[in-house]
């Protein structure tokens, strides 16, 4: 197959997929009676107009990168972790608990400790689903979804009960939130006056480490092998079950870390709705980034724009911010369809036949014609 045909095919499929995703969003916008072009313009350009918008996009990108890295690891290993939402909340709970318990520990020790405990909380929560899948064959999508619902309740219970800020009880307002974290547990902001914090550096460094782990170490290779073909990996002596569990624990650790960073750098206390859908957006980011750290960072920035942008459409055009979920769903459906089509040699062959037929004659036909023309000339 000619390279030009391949390029044409891939770009055509990608364009159609992008149009399909935008189109699904447009249908919903038309039903709302909104100006489609105007709305998309606000979503995509408004967040990038000033420093505040750009820093907010990056603030959103940090948890998205962290969660997506974990999801990429788990997807590569062949276990679909949908439970990041719950793992984030468990990470927040454990990070908050440690930070509040040790207020007098110096910052240089406390911050890493808090982040690690957040990662541990997420990892522990994810290991339930990983264990059930590895040992009992329980479908991990269902179990992680259920664990999300359970985590929401545990989180709510802790914030309304044992972990509630005593001040809330005294004033009687009873807002479900924890005490403010001690200053020594805070991750500092980079630019004063904005919420951009050093967590972004951590996220980028971890992205590089994940790349090294997955593509430059033996255990990373084993993990990907088990995900690419469990049967073949088993023949090669890889313990697929423990690889699944390991991948799930890593994914949970990344989600938990995202929660810990979010609480220590942005909100500085555990509040309700802190994870705000990052667990699900992370799946979209991971897929959009091709399950590769190098793709995840730009993808996270893009979806950061979408998240901030849909918030702005709510304010400027009063289009509900739930719109972001519509777009994310549409993007997932388009991406996976496009990916399958691009990797399907038969579909490409079919396209080539039609494409070349469209330009003139089919390849084989043309050669035959030339032959017959030559014969004609000889005669």
């Amino acid at each position, binding site marked *: 197959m000619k390279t030009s045909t391949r390029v044409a095919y891939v770009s055509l499929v990608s364009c159609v997929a992008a149009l399909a995703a935008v189109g699904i969003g447009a249908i*919903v916008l038309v039903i709302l009676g909104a100006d489609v072009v105007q709305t998309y313009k606000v979503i995509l350009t408004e967040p990038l107009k000033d420093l505040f918008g750009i820093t907010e996009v990056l603030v959103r990108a940090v948890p998205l990168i962290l969660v997506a890295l974990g999801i990429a690891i788990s997807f590569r290993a062949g276990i679909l972790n949908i439970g990041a939402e719950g793992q984030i909340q468990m990470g927040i709970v454990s990070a908050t608990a440690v930070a509040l318990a040790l207020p007098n520990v110096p910052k240089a020790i406390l911050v890493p400790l808090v982040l690690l405990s957040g990662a541990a909380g997420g990892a522990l929560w994810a290991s339930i689903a990983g264990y059930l899948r590895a040992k*009992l064959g329980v479908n991990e999508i269902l179990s992680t979804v259920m664990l999300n619902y359970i985590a929401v309740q545990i989180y709510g219970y802790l914030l309304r009960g044992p972990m509630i800020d005593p001040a809330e009880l005294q004033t009687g307002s009873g807002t479900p939130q924890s005490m403010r974290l001690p200053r020594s547990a805070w991750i500092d902001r980079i630019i004063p006056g904005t919420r951009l914090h050093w967590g972004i550096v951590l996220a980028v460094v971890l992205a590089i480490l994940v790349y090294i782990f997955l593509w430059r170490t033996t255990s990373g290779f084993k993990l990907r092998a088990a995900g690419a073909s469990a049967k073949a990996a088993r023949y090669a002596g890889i313990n697929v079950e423990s690889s699944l569990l390991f991948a799930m624990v890593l994914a949970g650790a990344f989600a938990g870390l995202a929660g810990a960073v979010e609480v220590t750098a942005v909100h500085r206390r555990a509040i309700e709705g802190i994870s705000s859908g990052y667990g699900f957006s992370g799946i979209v980011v991971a897929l959009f980034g091709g399950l590769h750290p190098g793709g995840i960072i730009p993808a996270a920035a893009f979806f950061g724009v979408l998240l901030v942008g849909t918030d702005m459409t709510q304010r400027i055009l009063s289009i509900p911010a739930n719109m972001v*979920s519509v777009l994310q769903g549409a993007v997932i*459906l388009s991406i996976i369809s496009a*990916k399958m089509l691009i990797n*399907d040699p038969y579909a490409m062959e079919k396209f080539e036949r039609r494409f070349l037929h469209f330009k003139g004659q089919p390849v084989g036909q043309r050669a035959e014609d030339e032959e017959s023309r030559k014969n004609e000339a000889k005669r």
Partner: protein
Amino acid sequence: MTPLNIVLNILSIGIPFSVSLLLASLGEMFNQRAGIFNLGCEGIMSMGAFLGFICAYYFQNTALAPYVNLLGILAAGVAGALLGLLFALVTVTFHAPQGIAGIGLQMLGIGTAGTLFRHFVGGVTGIPGLPSYPIPLLSKIPFIGPVFFNMNMLAYLAFLLVPLSHYILFKTPWGLKVRAVGTSPRSADTMAINVQRTRYQALAVGGLFAGIAGAYLSLGQAKMFADDIVAGRGFIAVALVYFGGWSPYRILGGSLLFSIAQSLQLSIQVLGINFPYEFAVMFPYVLVIVVLAFTRSAAVKGPAALGQPYDREKRI
């Protein structure tokens, strides 16, 4: 309260609870029997719940008022079938991995329902919903009459769909085709069964059921709409299909067991046994995980080609 009253009370709450689960899992059963694992059920139910609600809400003061519920159910069913077909396009035609596709459809459905609801309605608004329809004579039977024969029409329909689904799946040519494409699509293809078309049809039926299940939630159960009205029931329905071993009667048993357990936990609270309500809300989800863990170990065999896209061109 006498123990009998308590039991009857639990049943009279639990049985109507089971309807949406039952409808959704019957639909999912058709999907999975055809080899497609549709996790988008949750999103389809969400759209169904919204459409059921919005029809009742918009037309309740117009000439259409007597038919609003019917209209809502129809709209929910049609939208559900269309979303099922969208899922078919992605998973059957494009062979996309079904698990992720399901999550995509879930986000799309919940997002669309939420966006439209916020825009057109806004806050919590009640609707009259489906009236209960006591069956003459039967509802007069002491004790069991009010429990079993005093539900709304959609609930009766759902229970009637159990034997009907059994009949369709095991006694009709179409049911045989569905099971064939879900067990061995290549053999089915060899026997001139159109695998793609049969899977499309099964997904449309599954979507139709899930849409109506959603409409039952808003019209029959909650009599309102909220963003999180489905609250994981779509995923629970998928789990119930596993639990019910892909057979309609066992799925009925599963959804009854499940919803009765849920109403049992509610009754415990009513009786004054005190524990944080978050744990009560958590209970069904924990139950799903436990059930799944035990179902898998019981070596239940599902449709052999479940989750595998079929590509005619592919060499084996």
